[in-house]
């Protein structure tokens, strides 16, 4: 409860972890607010169905609040009518000159604050992916502020969890992105770092995942626990195995 998990990918696509957490939390009965910035709803829905969860059904029963970033941006850009239902567009920072993410934060807060009729287990905020906000004009400080506010509400007040995906390339020249990623790493309870293999593409081992449990944050004098596995992604599943022990090798 109250945990911040950072998903990080380098030289590969870590979005399979996003799909995993989405279906995992929905199946666990949590109320989920999914800020999906890069892909359409149907993309996530099709994959979620392969993993055994229907996003449409989850939306209908009020368990899933789905922010389709691409669609909101279109509404913002081409929408002639004023805000429907009186709520400002969560992505209004794109066209405003004051780029703060307050509207986005308000959207998250309103989505996850439980109504009296709700009976869901703890709230979860899922973001795919945070790096896009920088491309849309938000500064690193604004992005980190947004995350901070979300942590206060979702993790501390509502005792829920947050899972955020960021991209980071080695030798990246995107200093703003590196700043955000490094700062988030320091404050995360759990870091899942997915990397393509240094030796290049391999059919049987798609990459390596480094799991860091930030036990050091609990100030008990213990060190962080780090585990490394390799993985292979399949159509409906991802298999993990110890390094060098891929099924193709054994």
């Amino acid at each position, binding site marked *: 409860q109250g945990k911040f998990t950072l998903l990080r990918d380098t030289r590969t*696509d870590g*979005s*399979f972890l996003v*799909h995993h957490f989405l279906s995992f939390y929905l199946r666990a009965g949590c109320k989920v607010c999914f800020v999906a910035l*890069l*892909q*359409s709803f*149907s*993309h996530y829905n*099709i*994959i979620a169905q*392969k993993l055994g969860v229907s996003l449409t059904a989850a939306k209908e029963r009020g368990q899933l609040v789905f922010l389709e970033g*691409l*669609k909101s*941006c*279109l509404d913002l*850009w*081409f929408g002639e009518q004023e805000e429907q239902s009186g709520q400002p567009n969560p992505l209004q920072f*794109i*066209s*405003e*000159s004051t780029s703060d993410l307050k509207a986005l934060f308000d959207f998250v807060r309103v989505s996850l604050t439980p109504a009296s009729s709700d009976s869901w287990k703890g709230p979860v905020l899922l973001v795919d992916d945070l*790096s*896009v906000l*920088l*491309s*849309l*004009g938000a500064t690193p400080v604004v992005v980190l502020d947004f995350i901070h506010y979300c942590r206060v509400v979702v993790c501390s007040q509502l005792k829920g969890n947050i899972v955020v995906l960021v*991209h980071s*390339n080695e030798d*990246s*020249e*995107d*200093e*703003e*992105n590196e700043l955000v990623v490094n700062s988030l790493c320091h404050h995360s309870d759990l870091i899942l770092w997915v990397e393509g293999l240094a030796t*290049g*593409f391999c*059919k049987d081992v798609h990459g390596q995942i480094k799991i860091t449990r930030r036990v050091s944050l609990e100030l008990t004098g213990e060190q962080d626990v780090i585990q490394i596995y390799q993985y292979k*992604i*399949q*159509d*409906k*599943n*991802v298999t993990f195995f110890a390094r060098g022990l891929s099924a193709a090798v054994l």
Partner: protein
Amino acid sequence: TSTKFGHYYDVSKTMSPELFQSIKWHSFYLPEELSLQPTVKTCNMNSAYGRLLLSIQRIIYQEGFDGSDPQKKQKNILRIGIQSLGSLLWGDDICCSDTPEDIHSLTKFLYVLRGLLRKSLSACIITIPAHLIENKAIMERVTNLSDTVVGLESFIGSERETNPLYKDYHGLVHVRQIPRLNSLICDVSDTKDLAFRLKRKLFTIERLHLPPDLSDTVSRTSKQELAGSAKLLSSGCGAMAIGKKHLDF
């Protein structure tokens, strides 16, 4: 084996009018747009990009590519081509300045365009002169916002022009990103080293492989050169072509 698909061009001639007179096409020529409509409100984005977005959105809506009007049942896909995005032709200074005025316009444009493509029956291919963009962070962001990214690196003007490894080719093809849509897995090909050859009527992309070492007289130094070149195969980037897939089914 040669196939007839997609190879009907001749770079020494212009396209014959009969070819495009029978199909419906639209164009966007910035100087013309500027003279037709001198002022257009585009919030927080380079105005040329803003105008282009409005134009694309208008075509999608009017021609029914977004499925909004059941009367206009479109059986076709809108194919969009945008040339030299990010260059001075679009009023963007990221290609000619170390400290561009607005580094976010291009990525914002791509994001809104992505939304338009996802919501309609359309596909878009864009070329960007990446070698002119000083700020490499922009290209990283552009890559993340695209579905497919292919880089073309020409040998002209580089030391590779005289490298015997590359004598049959005009440049390298770098596949930097492929789409992973509606599925956990993606279709990564085994071959990572590709080169292209541009002839008057043919553009071919072939696997690059080291030639067989047949002769005893091939000295050690030249073998090392070849190996060194092979290591360099994945670096560098010239003009970039980016394709964005469409939909939403």
